[in-house]
């Protein structure tokens, strides 16, 4: 499986660490809404189909990526930085050279 890192370009899955379900919303740090906390920590959508998930390019630029991947076919339809990197030094080199 290849994941196209917005910074590093297409890389083998061996370079990435799976960080799980990207739909989970972490409550405000001070929140006392325990149901929300429990849902955030333990409950998963786990869809059969497109899955919004987080991967860290731990064996590369170490950025966290928001990936939409089909759990039935492993087809990846989109990869973006979780944290916006608007800086010009974040464009894939490939684009600059093609």
């Amino acid at each position, binding site marked *: 499986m290849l994941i196209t890192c917005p910074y590093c370009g297409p890389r*083998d899955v061996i370079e990435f660490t799976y960080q799980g379900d990207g739909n989970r919303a972490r409550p405000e740090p*001070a929140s*006392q809404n325990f149901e929300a906390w429990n849902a955030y920590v333990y409950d998963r959508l786990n869809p059969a189909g497109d899955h919004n998930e987080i991967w*860290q390019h731990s064996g590369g630029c170490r950025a966290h990526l928001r990936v939409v991947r089909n759990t039935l*076919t492993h087809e990846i339809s989109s990869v973006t930085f979780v944290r916006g990197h608007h800086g010009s030094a974040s464009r894939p080199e490939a684009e600059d050279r093609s």
Partner: protein
Amino acid sequence: MSPRRTDTGGRIDRLKTIRFTFDGTAYTGHAGDTLASALLAKGVILLGRSFKYHRPRGLLTAGVEEPNALVTVLKGEVREPNIPATMVEIHDGLVAVSQNRFPSLAFDINAVNQLGGKLLSAGFYYKTFMGPVVGPLKGTRFWMFCEHFIRRAAGLGSAGSAKDTARYERMNAFCDVLVVGSGPAGLMAAKAASDQGARVILADLEPRLGGSANWTGETIDGAPAADWARRTVAQLEGRDNVRLLPRTTVWGYYDGNTLAALERVSDHKDQPGKGEPRHRHWAIRAKSVVLATGAFERPLVFPGNDRPGVMLAHAAERFANEFGVLPGQRIALFTNNDSAYRAAVALKKAGAAIAAIVDVRPEPSADMRELATEAGAELLAAHAVIATEGGRALSGLKLQRFDMSNGALNGEARSMHADCLLMSGGWSPTIHLASQAGARAEWDAARQAFLPPKPAQDGPVQRWIGAGAFTGSFSTAAAMAEGRAAGISAAGATNTPAALPVVDAVPGDPDPAPVFEIRASGKSFVDFQHDVTAEDVRLAHREGFVSVEHLKRYTTLGMATDQGKSSNIPGLAIMAEALGKPIPEVGTTRFRPPFAPVSIGSLAAERFGDLRPERLTPMHDWHLANGATMYSAGLWYRPMIYALAGETVEQAYVREARATRESAGIVDVSTLGKIAVQGPDAAEFLDRVYTNMFSTLAVGKARYGLMLREDGLAFDDGTTWRLGEQDFLMTTTTANAGKVMQHLEYFLDVIWPDLKVHVTSVTDEWAGAAIGGPKARQILATCVTGTAVGNATLPFMGIVRGRIADVPVMICRLSFSGEMAFEVYCGAGHSTHVWEALLDAGKPFGLVTYGLEALGTMRIEKGHVTGAEIDGRTTARDLHLDWMLSKKKPFIGSAMMDREGLIASERLELVGLIALDNRPLNGGAHIVEEVDEANPHDSIGHITACCYSPALGKYIALALVKGGKARRGTRAHVSDPLRGRFGPVEIVSNHFYDPDGNRMHG
């Protein structure tokens, strides 16, 4: 030259003689021979024994799909079992032996299994061996008794335990177009794609590229097809955008067009070159893939079809044309299609006598009749072979008239003499890789075969393109046209018409008659290696195992080393007939990697003999040179003890710990995780990450911190030093360094992207030496320049910068040992220099080096926790660290840490233990209220760490015990049935030694 060897033709070099042995007998062959062709040339017909009935078997095929002729190749003590003789290239000194026979291939005791016959029918073992309900053999015992013998009768070759001395390697490759298969279609594809400037890789599992061009005897552009192939290969070799990979089996089609291939680099050589691997494991990331993998010929199912001397028609053609070997002198053919006629002619040309062509079809075409005449063969249309004769080698066969409309046999049976019978049951495209890629095969009634799906126009991105026999285009001309087109579009260009090489091929209709089995009395084999007969398939049907997967699993059809390459379709056909359904409704199995068996060594590749890298501290060589016994901790190596001559481990660590508490000791702490936390929001970030406050920490001071997981359980601990307003140095435990780093990065990237904080691993930047003991400060005073180290300048948890032996150092006064102690950090490249300077300064004060054991001993005496206590199941409260849980702010885990399960009484809590019987304790021992050595029960906890405490003069331990805090001052017992250690202990506080910390505050 042997009588079976033709004088000319083929890929072999008749001038080069190769010497090898098979089952201890010396043979000769020629360069270019496979073990199969060389033995066949010598008239060796019997090459193996079948799995279940141990029936004698000869060659069925000439290639990778061979189910019968499996051998073990020996390289000294190292064994390579189950290799098809058809895939072994002979070289001088090759040693091969046959398998699954005792005492010999010719006489095999287990052949008695054949008498078992119907008793050993499919699935018989599920119905018996259950044994008596009572007595010594009840339960599983009787089965295990039988199993012992069954296991020894089963199995093919033997694996060895001698370490393979060969080298294996990985190769990561990237290309625009990967072409799998180098037949006419593949060669055309590679050529066309490379013409477009694409980066091309062409792989073929055979040593010689060219595929069918090497043996069909057809001519291309007026020259023998084999010559055309050679010319084209030479052309491609010259292009630097093309990589040719002969002897390379593309076996796996993984996600994202990642394909796995096995290159047999040096198996065919007497000796590999210096540093040359035996196998290379290619991971190929291809933009697009051309599958030109050809097709497999199918056997016909009839009584005695497994007798040595019965072979697939194209295999005989290959042996004759590619290796110059005749599989027999007097040959008969049995077919349901035209392709066998070409084989008949080829063998005739090669010098064999063709006894007859037996064709199940009533009216072979005029072309075929002509070919039969050309082959000098009697053509028996509407006939079938109903039996074969001979012992361990074919001597003749029986025929009868056959009506393919109803499968009926009629008329007089007739015998015929022949020493070789060639069969052809039609062809099945090699769609395995496409199937791995997720393609659903489609049944083609005309071809009587599953074909790959046609590329969908509006479908998703086309990952692969097919060409040649793979798509069901069995004619060479069509294959070449498809190959060229596939190569061009794979390269992303548009196809333009161009003149194609002119093929002069033997005529033939690609569609076989829908005949798979001749039903007559006697064992008719479907899966040759596993001895699955047509009757077994019908039995599976009778018992309801009718879905294709049940058929496979119940009869083991297609589960042998050939994975059913030649048996799947005949098996399906017989089941379909039993069900009265068309074949596609029985279904086909999804093929899974690998296409053909792959050496495990190649998959381990560079990690064979080197599973994990060694992680070394900067003082590693010094430790080794100075008598340290090293301890493997994760990937790190750390000194365990520095034993003096004759010392036991306990004596050594007791001496080291005692000396440290009496004067001073020094230990390498470079493995501690170190993370630079920098930026305007660094302090705020640490407040959120740690349970306690860090924003209040003054510059030049350090603080002990505790982290929880989101779920509220303890995660990691360590000290963090504030080096500047926006600049912190965090330390973590050695084991969790990587996990903590990812934890921090996750929160910064995903949860709090607004925080301006950078985290960087600087574990390897700093070497660390912890020096502790009553004399520690004096020692520093004598060697540190540029700063004072007294209480005023360097109070507890203070940090100063100075120099030792002209090297800049950073010193923090903190203590794990419980003594007055300092951690001295310097650039890793200067570590040994500083370490030795400290030792020199320490000599007059009796400074000793100490290792992990003494470190552990002193931490147990102090009751500090490590990974043994922070084990992912304990809370801060369980470890009496609740004083660190800030009430002033939320932090990671704060919302979850008070859930009912985490604050329940009866949780395991940290306590100290003192052995009342003054005997050593064991890690992992359990704690009970009442000892019951006979049948231990009611554990209330376990020991996490233990030692002999020189400070207390007792054997002590840390333990996690149910409601432990409340049990302090009470008695319990260790219960360690695994090691027979039982005895009384006193439960005490985990702070055994200097609980008020007077010594370290000093």
